[in-house]
């Protein structure tokens, strides 16, 4: 399984932590598509605590963390 942790506004209408079957989601982009999250809605993207790209390959046991952009001041 893959654990997807969502932060701040990405949690709106979603759970804070979502478990997905790794067989069905080979990349982070596949996870985003499943959760109906556009790439432009994600700023920091971590896999197991390391900064990765949307194309990063996922394997069983991975933890994906997604943070929305914060841009105001």
């Amino acid at each position, binding site marked *: 399984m893959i654990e997807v942790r969502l932060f701040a506004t990405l949690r709106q209408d979603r759970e804070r932590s979502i478990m997905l079957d790794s067989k069905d989601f080979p990349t982070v982009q596949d996870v985003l598509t499943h959760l109906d999250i556009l790439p432009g809605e994600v700023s920091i993207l971590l896999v197991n605590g390391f900064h990765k790209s949307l194309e990063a390959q996922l394997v069983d046991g991975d933890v994906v963390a997604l943070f929305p952009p*914060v841009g105001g001041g």
Partner: protein
Amino acid sequence: MERRYERNIPALSDQECRLLRSKRVAVIGCGGIGGYLIELLARIGVGYIRTVDGDVFEESNFNRQLLSEQPLMGRPKARAAEARVQRINPRIEVEPVAAYLDNSNAKDIVSGCDLVLDGLDNIPARRILAAACTEANIPYIHGAISGWVAQVGISMPGDGLIDVLYPQGVSFRDRSVLSFAPSLCASVQAALAVKMLIGRPVETGTIYYFDLLNQEFETVKLDLGKKD
């Protein structure tokens, strides 16, 4: 030791306080984050503050901007910041720049500063600031807020922090900002700024992320330049 700084001691040493008085910083943006940054840096005793903002106060600023006051409606924020600092300590040198940061003035705006602080409110201006600081070889301390959330990180020249935080195509839709977000953001930035100015160790390549709605505080270590 001036009496006004005696309560800085012993958290800061006499020598560190003197060092702060010799330092020059630019605060880019004098709105939500910037207003608090200027206040905190003036109070702790930074000797020179360049206050940069092309905007004037309007009614929608009042829910969060420290410098905004009813009598200042329509007045330049950069000059309100100067006046505020002079009321706190007239010995602090303040240079107001009542202009928006853009490609034509960014180099001059950061020039001669030991450190730059980001109080901006949009992504394009942050990209311009990052490029100018890289060219001038000046570190800057990023801060941004939205709704209940604040994020802070140190950017060293050329490290690409802003490109990681704001990849092409990214945009933020939530224009709300609650009053405690800028004060928290600025406090974290100011603490990092003081540490950098007096030469204490800091973590670079790190984003501190504060979600005040869910009371979650994350430290995210970014491998800058090493994204797979």
